[in-house]
């Protein structure tokens, strides 16, 4: 084995353990996605609420900020005391870290909706819910999307640390690489897919964000008319 260089070793590793890497990749991705999904379910309504009641925003964003400052390993350990070992602890950790970018972006997105457009909506006799549904949400969707994108990239990094509480994922491969003799190739075999996952999900969500951008949509529509 030692006569191969590190890239040949990496290739050899993937040839022999491909299925295993794939299953851990899948697991890693799911853990991150679940955490971010819950954060979006909770965070977006909170963001909308604090945009409506701006005096609450300082508090809520302050709390989310404090959560963000806790080191992730410490957060995992503390949550482990309550939730035990395993994947649930990691999902809740990811959830907590994903809250801030999602709440903050929802809040900013809602605030940045042009007041004239809101007035026009009210003038047309829209209810509050209709204003939200037909004006505010569509106009702030791309900013909210940017928050989710940040949150997901963050989540993928945190999930890697989750291996320390036995959740599995690509972090397992990285840790095994640090334990093995000449484990350089194994560390890369865990680290490269993690990076790849972060880059690809960032790109995909970036594309979605652009798709939802109202200014881009208008240009597109105009282009079609011409």
């Amino acid at each position, binding site marked *: 084995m030692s006569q191969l260089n590190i890239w040949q070793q990496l290739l050899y590793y993937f040839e022999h353990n491909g299925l295993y890497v794939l299953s851990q990749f899948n*697991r890693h991705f799911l853990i991150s996605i*679940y955490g971010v999904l819950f954060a979006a379910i*909770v965070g977006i*309504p909170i963001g909308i609420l604090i945009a409506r009641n701006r005096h*609450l925003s300082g508090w809520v964003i302050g709390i989310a900020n404090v959560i963000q400052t806790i080191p992730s390993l410490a957060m995992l350990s503390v949550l482990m005391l309550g939730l035990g070992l395993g*994947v649930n602890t990691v999902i*809740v950790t990811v*959830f907590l870290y994903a809250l801030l970018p999602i709440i903050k972006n929802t809040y900013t997105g809602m605030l940045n909706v042009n007041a004239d457009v809101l007035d026009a909506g009210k003038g047309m006799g829209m209810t509050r819910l209709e204003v939200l549904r037909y004006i505010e949400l569509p106009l702030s969707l791309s900013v909210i999307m940017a928050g989710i994108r940040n949150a997901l990239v963050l989540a993928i990094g945190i999930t890697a640390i989750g291996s320390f509480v036995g959740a599995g994922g690509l972090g397992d491969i990285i840790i095994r690489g640090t334990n*093995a003799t000449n484990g350089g190739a*194994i560390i890369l075999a865990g680290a490269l897919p993690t990076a790849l996952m972060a880059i690809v999900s960032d790109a995909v969500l970036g594309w979605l964000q652009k798709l939802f951008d109202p200014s881009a949509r208008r240009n597109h529509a105009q282009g079609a008319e011409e």
Partner: protein
Amino acid sequence: MRHLQRKVWSLVIVALAGVMLLSGCGFPGLNNSSTGTVRIASMSTTESQIMAEMLKDLIEHDTNYKATIVSNLGSGNVTFNAQKRNDADLSAVRYTGTDLESIMGKKIDRSRTQAQTDAYVHQYFKKHYHMTYFPSYGFADTYAWMVTKDYAKKNHVNTVSDLKSHASQMKVGIDPIWENRHGDGYADFKRTYGFSFGDLYPMQIGLVYEALSQGRMDAVLGYSTDGRIKSYNLKVLKDNKNFFPPYNCSVVANDAALKQYPQLKKTLRKLNGKISLNTMQKLNYEVDNNLEEPATVAKRYLHQHNYFEGGR
């Protein structure tokens, strides 16, 4: 305003409670704590991970339960606590000698035979912790002193006692847990063999073999089942005063789990007495030296030995 503030807070609390509740259920695709899933605790050692993967594959093949591995736990104490707190249903590997000292807090009684010690640990676990110790897999892991073949030849060393005249100038690498262990730790070692080493270097157990083969250490204390003994061509010194008791390795399951999953017992028995010291060394070697994952090695072993043949 005050009314609204209260509404917001109650919403936040309800949402958080909802997430906590949801996290208690299963997440599709993750095989986690949902019922019907057997949780196997595994340490970060190669041996532990290989055995955990084997058990997982066997459980999923033989029964209609799912299995998941809670991996990378730091020591036997952590896996024990995971079982006790019901974060895991079984530990893939437990060693009788280690449990006797570090879990039960008893000293090794050297007048007892190995079988007597094992039986004592098994009964103690049943009675005090409500856990079932299965019969051994067939191998025992123990600490062993080792040197390079060259060193052994040059200094005429064959047994641990032979180290006595060189010990004061020797650099030795050890498992950090061993230094302060009671019963078979360094203090007891000094008393039994009557000498101490010049410089002690505690390091992660996986590193000692390489440190020895590269000549950075004169002798190291490693695990007798490690595959790298073979790959680095090391010489294991005979423990001529029988200081280190052999630690028979078994799977240990919570009694509650065996009750909850009635088919489990039969499956867990399948590997009892089937894996010899040589086999374990070979499997460890494949993982530690051949860039193969414990999961891959475990699957191949089970395949080659026809564990996957036949239906449920």
